[in-house]
């Protein structure tokens, strides 16, 4: 391409270089890494952000780890995650909150609680079948039942009045005893946001 764009002295023609630069600039973007706890000015609206997600999960994990049923248990209780119901006006994968709480607890609770992986139920059953048939080595172990279920609910109230929109969110999580349905722990996180619609979008 440079050969095509040489001038009489054999130097690259300015127009070609300028064109190349323009095309190159037009087709490339930029990426930078930012702290997930930092509120980006690119995040607009009243919806939940990564900052909210992390704050909620960390606070819930701390609160849950401190309860007597976990702190004073003789052996680590087993917890299963059940889907978190999303009743808000935002598209949210509610169960991802519970998964993040699990991650935080496994990282920081020093083995005082253990989780069963129900998402792998099908794979575990297939593996056990293969073991029974002798196709793979190992014992066909009985799967561990859950002592508790961790679940939750996300709820929101949204309002739009003039140029301002507000969004209130309540994210509640609870730990329910598997054998009695008694709720042994519940905590929530509330947040309210206000956003103004840009001048050009009114």
């Amino acid at each position, binding site marked *: *391409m440079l*050969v*095509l*764009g*040489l*001038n*009489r002295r*054999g130097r690259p*023609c300015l*127009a*070609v270089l300028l*064109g*190349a630069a*323009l*095309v190159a600039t*037009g*087709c490339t973007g930029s990426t930078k890494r930012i702290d997930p706890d930092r509120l980006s*000015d*690119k*995040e*607009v*609206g009243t*919806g939940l952000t990564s900052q909210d997600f992390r704050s909620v999960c960390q606070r819930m994990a701390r609160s849950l780890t401190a309860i007597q049923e976990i702190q004073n248990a003789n052996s680590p209780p087993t917890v299963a995650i059940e889907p978190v119901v*999303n009743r*808000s*006006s*935002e*598209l949210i994968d509610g169960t991802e909150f519970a998964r993040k709480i699990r991650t935080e607890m496994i990282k920081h609770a020093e083995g005082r609680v253990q989780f069963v992986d129900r998402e792998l139920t099908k794979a575990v059953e297939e593996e056990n079948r293969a073991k029974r048939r002798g196709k793979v080595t190992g014992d066909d172990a009985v799967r561990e039942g859950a002592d508790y279920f961790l679940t939750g609910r996300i709820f929101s109230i*949204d309002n*739009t009045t*003039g*140029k301002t*929109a507000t969004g209130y969110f309540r994210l509640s999580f609870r730990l329910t005893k598997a054998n009695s349905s008694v709720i042994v722990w519940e905590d929530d996180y509330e947040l309210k946001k206000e956003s103004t*619609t*840009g*001048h*050009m*979008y*009114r």
Partner: protein
Amino acid sequence: MLYYMFKARLPSVCLAGYVVLLVGGVIGCAPAGKDRVAAALSVRHTLSPDYRDAVLAMDECRQNPKNLKDYALWGMCGTTVAVYAGDVHDANRIGRETFLTVQKYEDKDSETMAALGNEAVKFFKGEPHERSMLDFQLGLSAYQQGNYEDARVFFLQSLLAAATRDDDAAEFREDFRLGHYWLGRTYLKLGEPDNARVCFEKAGVIRTRPRELKEVETWRRERQRARQEEIKLEAICYKNATTGKEPVEGVVDLSQLLTRADLPAQLADAAPVNPVQQQAEDPEAFLKPDFQQQANLVVVVELGTGPIKYLAGGEHDRDEIAPALFKEQFVDVYIDGHKAGPAFCLSNVYNEAMTRGVKTRRERQASKWLAKQVAKRMPFVGLVAGAWDISADPRHVSVLPGQVHVFAARVTPGLHRVSLRCSDINSSYLPRFDVDRNFIAVPPENEAVVLVSTKENESNAYLLAQAALADAAQK
């Protein structure tokens, strides 16, 4: 060797190189061909449209990095066409990406540039009615897939999007009746009849826009004149077709002035047994939660084309909305040839566009216009001010329907034929707008949701006209 060959003709080679580079650049980020895009955008007007190619062409435009500021425009067009074509999968894929972008994307630099000059340089996020239609389409796609939780979210979002931000349209913040209706049906599916009742009540509230009644009167008069002209032309057409040198066999006379009231209880080829078990004759009965709970066949009818946005003012400094006039205004539905009641208008997109609220934009546009007029009259500055572009933003989703009507009934499960008979604003029957859809499957347990669009001259059956002729012959 090549080097010396090119060195001999350097000036022309430089130019050629530059052109090659630019063409290469354009091809690298090329949009879909202009003809293809034009064909895709006219999908509502074409008698045999290539839906698949229309969706693909619009998606290519959306994905093209050169069209970044129009990303949501093409996304909204693509979603509308995908829904129109019954392609729930693509509607979901394109619509969700567009929805998230409209919600989350912000480009303050282009907003500032738009505020100072040409407003079309900003990232397109659509007018409130366009955003609410996108959310509605996503909700309908999720509903049709049985994903009622997502459907609830999108229908809620459609109501939030329709809530205009400007105070001059404050009383129209809850006027998206289509969203309320579908949210109500979704709540029924989620087992929340109280919420559903509230939604159906809101869906029943009609807010008349200022000047609306006057406009309707004008359109009625104009349509009356046009209809008489059409009838004359139909009569000439029939005469030519039957008495010409080569008479056309089976030609039907469409010059009869039939009204909506003349529509028969049964079409000529009606099934022996009426499959309709429960139907609603008026909006009150239609919006009763019990009726909606019982209804297992819902037909969403899209009529005409959506409003047009155009530039007005000497400097193209204002954006205005104009209606895309179309003939069909009322729809009566037949199931297996048996009259099953009217479809009710739940969305008039032109009315929703006209109640978008323009206070802020008019202040901004007027300020820019005034500033330009003053600057143009100043010495030295006037030369530059003349080139100051203060155009408004005419971009709009041109593939939207003009109105959305909804019909619901309880029918016996099985395969059915859904026939639509349209009438104009004066309730004159429009035989050229007949629509027939066969093999609509209503399952025994669940429901069937069908989206149908009206289009002139799509059907060549004209069964109603034939039946009317047969009746006349008998008399």
